[in-house]
């Protein structure tokens, strides 16, 4: 999150609604360690990343949903998921993300 600080403050100052997605847990092999952070704003701009590009597209879709509803939730991506064919990690691990609005 540290590396996104300047941009996040700029977005906030410009009045954007923002969703933060953070890797909070990794089982097995995962591309990014816990703490890796991605942010999406209400015009679809993106900062940072939570994987090696494997799941970012799906995270943007989820983030847009959260911008609408304001809820917070955990989502997981892994090889064994039903979504594995569409969205998943090729490295075989599972990552757990926490998504929330930046309203704090």
């Amino acid at each position, binding site marked *: 999150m540290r590396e996104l600080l300047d941009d996040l403050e700029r977005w906030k100052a410009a009045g954007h609604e923002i969703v933060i997605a953070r890797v909070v847990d990794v089982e097995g092999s995962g591309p990014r360690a816990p703490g890796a952070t991605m942010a999406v704003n209400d015009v679809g701009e993106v900062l940072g990343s939570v994987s090696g590009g494997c799941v970012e597209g799906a995270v943007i879709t989820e983030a847009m949903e959260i911008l609408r509803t304001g809820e917070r939730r955990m989502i997981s991506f892994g090889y064994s998921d039903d979504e594995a064919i569409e969205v998943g990690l090729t490295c075989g691990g599972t990552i757990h993300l*926490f998504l929330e609005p930046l309203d704090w």
Partner: protein
Amino acid sequence: MAGQLFSQLATELRAGRPVAMATEVDGPRPGSKILIGASAMPTQPGGYGSLGNSDLDRVVVRDSIGCLELGRNEIRHYGSRGEANQQALTVFIEVFAPPPRMLIFGAVDFTAALARVGSIMGYSITVCDARESFATTERFPMADRVVIDWPHRLLEHIEADSRIQSLGVRDAICILTHDPKFDVPAVIAAFSTDVGYIGAMGSRSTQENRQAKLIEAGATQEDLQRLHAPIGLDLGARTPEEVAVSICAEIIATHTGRNAPKLRDGSGPLH
């Protein structure tokens, strides 16, 4: 509270102060947070914010301080009042610690390469050499600090000055002087710190020589176990850049406890 916790976090990060943020990610109040700092916070003694129960807050603050010391992010499970071995809620503790420090003693060719690789690894780099003509910022533009002093005096200063955090498990000392006049007192001073990695450059015979002098100077077997010398992993590294990679790789292996072949543990040629 909207907007306040984030700006408090931003303030702490900008000031370079170590801070941890605990977020409930699963449970009755997802998204609730506590900001825990090493320095003064608006709501002492705990942190800034709450997870909704004072017992839970106390336990989470304690665990967050542990994470701060280790510089490690963690996911933890608790009961609703902070009980261990319960799963009522899941908390993600994220640590924003200042970068780990790498102290490089000796302003030699290898120093510039190690300063570059160490920088890429995220270390804050200090180059220290007592010789004024060698230790210049022009020669080491990639270092965060260049200090002209005897290495052991720099270490004593860091440990004695209450405004500077003492060296810890995340920090590293790399002694590249390979001149016993400088490196024996430097290694002895390094032993008296809690630094996580101590490495010293030199051939196997240099190291034998140095070891004898270190024992003379009062080093114990336990101390000597902490010393990685000859420095680096057994990669057959030759150029300053290759040696820098082998040193950084050894630091990683030391932290993770993985079984990577260290030059110290072998007997063959260094390259």
